[in-house]
């Protein structure tokens, strides 16, 4: 197991270097003058030129790339052009915000998706099965911005159950320590804020979790159906085991392996792809951070931001692979 872990980690290095090359070439191919975009229409030509020189944008991109990689090896992620702050310092609160949102979205997606998938398979061709799969189909094709605004309209504006934007009650905030507000409010012993923080997580969590929920439900269903038709399940049933135990104890374990892959991939995808949800719910996450960097041509932020996301994505995949092994001992790594 540990040699496998080591090998997997060694593989990460070329993957990440490949990422930097791809990202670097793509963003330098986008048209648009960063100096103009960053300094605004009102800046003078002289200060734009000074900025280009200072950023090394007048050098060939190969030189820029080598410089960037050199800094990276020293642990320097660069400095944001727009805010003039070191990225390593700046990105942490964004990552924390996204992490909190992603976790709640995936909790929603997994709990609802897996259960719906199991029940659909269990009661195959029943009304529940049809209804759940129709909902899943709608869920997959739902535009997130529309869903988000509808949620706000119903649950915030009409029913007043939940807040529509932001991460916590701003009028009486909790001091950020970890930037994960759920943990921060527990650390501060502020149960009232913990409650509002959780409430702030519900609507964006559902908006962001709907698509993965639908995918997970469909995946679970088909995977369960396959397993349910296998011999060992027939044996288990023949022994007179209750349907519930057959489904949740015997079948689920094997059916869960492909589902885990999907959950892993979806979690990775949510990390960087939450721009729309973050925009609608004014959530200061890493998706919006990178998106805004792109629209202002903040090259260092785009590069390092995508690199960090890629890194996390790869780590999640690694964790999923390790989980396989613990769920199913038949999977052997050499």
């Amino acid at each position, binding site marked *: 197991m540990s040699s496998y872990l080591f090998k997997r980690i060694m593989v990460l290095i070329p993957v990440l270097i490949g990422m930097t090359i791809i990202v670097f070439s793509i963003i330098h191919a986008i048209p648009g003058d960063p100096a103009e975009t960053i*300094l605004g229409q009102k800046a003078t030509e002289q200060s734009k030129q000074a900025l280009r020189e200072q950023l090394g944008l007048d050098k060939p991109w190969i030189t820029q790339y080598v410089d960037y990689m050199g800094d990276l090896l020293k642990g320097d992620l660069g400095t944001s052009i727009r805010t003039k*702050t070191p990225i390593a310092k700046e990105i942490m609160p964004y990552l924390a915000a996204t992490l909190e949102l992603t976790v709640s979205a995936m909790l929603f997606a997994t709990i609802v998706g897996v259960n719906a998938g199991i029940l659909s398979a269990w009661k195959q061709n029943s009304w529940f099965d049809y209804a759940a799969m129709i909902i899943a189909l709608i869920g997959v094709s739902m535009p997130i911005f529309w869903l*988000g*605004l509808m949620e706000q309209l119903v649950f915030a504006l009409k029913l007043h159950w939940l807040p*529509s934007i932001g991460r916590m009650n701003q*009028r009486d905030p909790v001091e950020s320590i970890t930037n994960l507000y759920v943990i921060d409010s527990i650390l501060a012993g502020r149960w009232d804020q913990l409650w509002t923080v959780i*409430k702030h997580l519900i609507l964006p969590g559902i908006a962001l979790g709907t698509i993965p929920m639908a995918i997970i439900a469909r995946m679970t269903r088909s995977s369960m159906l396959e397993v349910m038709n296998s011999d060992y399940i027939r044996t288990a049933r023949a022994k007179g085991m209750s349907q519930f135990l057959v489904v949740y104890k015997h079948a689920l374990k094997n059916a869960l392996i492909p589902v885990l892959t999907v959950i892993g991939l979806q979690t990775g995808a949510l990390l960087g792809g939450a721009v729309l949800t973050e925009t609608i719910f*004014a959530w200061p996450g890493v998706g919006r951070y990178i998106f805004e960097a792109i629209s202002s041509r903040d090259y260092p932020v785009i590069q390092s931001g995508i690199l960090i996301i890629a890194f996390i994505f790869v780590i999640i995949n690694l964790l999923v692979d390790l989980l396989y092994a613990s769920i199913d001992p038949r999977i052997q790594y050499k």
Partner: protein
Amino acid sequence: MKKWGSLALMLTLGAGLVLSGCGGNNGSSTTEGSASSAPASTAAATAATTASTQDTLIVGRGGDSASLDPAIVTDGESLKIGHQVFDSLLEYKPGTSEVEPSLADSWEVSQDGLTYTFKLHPNVKFHDGTDFNAEAVVFNFERWSDPKSPYKFEGDSFDYYDSMFGPDGSRVIKEVKAVDDLTVQFTLNQPQAPFLQNLAMTSFGIGSPTAIKEKKENFKNEPVGTGPFVFKEWKHNDSITLDKNPNYWKEGLPKLNKVIVRSIPDNSARFNALQNGEIDLMEDLSPDDLSTLESNTDLQKIERPPFNVAYLGFNFKKKPFDNVKVRQALNYAVNKQAIIDAFFAGQAQPAVNPMPPSLWGYNDQVKDYEYNLDKAKQLLVEAGYPNGLPDTVTLYAMPVSRPYMPDGKKVAEAIQADWEKIGVKTVIESPEWATYLDDTKAGEKDDIYMLGWTGDNGDPDNFIYTLLDKDTIPGNNRSFYVNEDLHKILVEAQKETDQNKRADLYKQAQVIIKEDAPWIPLVHTTPLLAAKANLKGYVPGPTGTEYYSDIYFE
């Protein structure tokens, strides 16, 4: 046993709704707003009965600040916060672009217009407790003007200083000198007519020298000025928190105890948040939401004075737009009133000149090209195009929403339809914003482009010279329009210190521009804000920044 699975499912499905449903009344204090509790209407009612208890203002706006040091930024969002934390020597009278005293109580100008002597307000302290005095003013101006200043930190560029007082090598300000503790003297290299107007800009807010020396790079994240509010916390892309400055030098201000400015990028979400009581004041209301706003008695509409212009510019590098008859023909073929009715909910007025009518020097004698398709066709015939233009015209429409143009593409489509009627076929292109600015500046891809401008300092120079003089190619003059006569007038106006004479010069300039028609001026918009009905004392400024110090809740 069998039911457990479905029970678990029902529980998890139902949990969110049940849990959230019972959170309606957890006894939040009245200042907390309804983010965590009661319906908006109840919240408003509570606020009304316990009138003066709300002393926190939450503002919702579209974007975050780039930096909190107003000297190194040019974007409006950053300046809005800078304006609360810093005071400049002068300021604009609320709601106008007229200059009035601020940190400087009075001033004298020498006969030749080269020496300005300011008397500073006594007993003013920076937020860090240090004294504001003439030395502090000198320190700040030296920091901005000396390219080798040790307080010009990595990445900083003082763009507004360069743009208002000339870049290094051609500075307007020769020297800033502390005569005594409360007297500061500016010596200029050449007279500058809008000098006082410029000094009042937020970018020239005076920062604490001690804080700049101590905090260095971090000053842009932890600004220290003399303004009505003290910077407390900045959560990037989320919120900026400002506390009341208890020692503010203006008696009785600010009235609020705390201001929280939140970034809520989506217009609809921001309006939802206002209706839900999570914010008290919002900027940039979509004209589409105006009717919803007006039907809600808990809310009020606030209009920012129109101080902008949206326009279509012709690219003189491209044929046949170097032909004045073609430009005039297309001017005749735009129905501005119809556009205003359809896309601005009436919150705009047709633009005739390249500057707003509220600005001094505006020439109201200039007549607009009226909407007249026959005249347009006739001019095209005279220009040698009896069957309309032979080639398809590339019309660049803005991909982003701006205060002067909420939806560029829709407006472009309306114009496209009108031009079709006179035989001018157009294709609309809206590349992403950075590319858009780049392309229009290069002038290779667009034939006609859409853009706009919001005034910075209440001087006509900031519209006409900045946007249409040959000096601003390449740059803001994206039409590549060159007229030597106009240039002479505009340069003369910059050096003239008599405002009446300057006004005359700008009036002449507007006549020339109308005749040459390098643009189709479209509209001057009235940007809309919305607030809770009980919010009082807010006077929106034309340049987009204003103090929050007079705001209170009734």
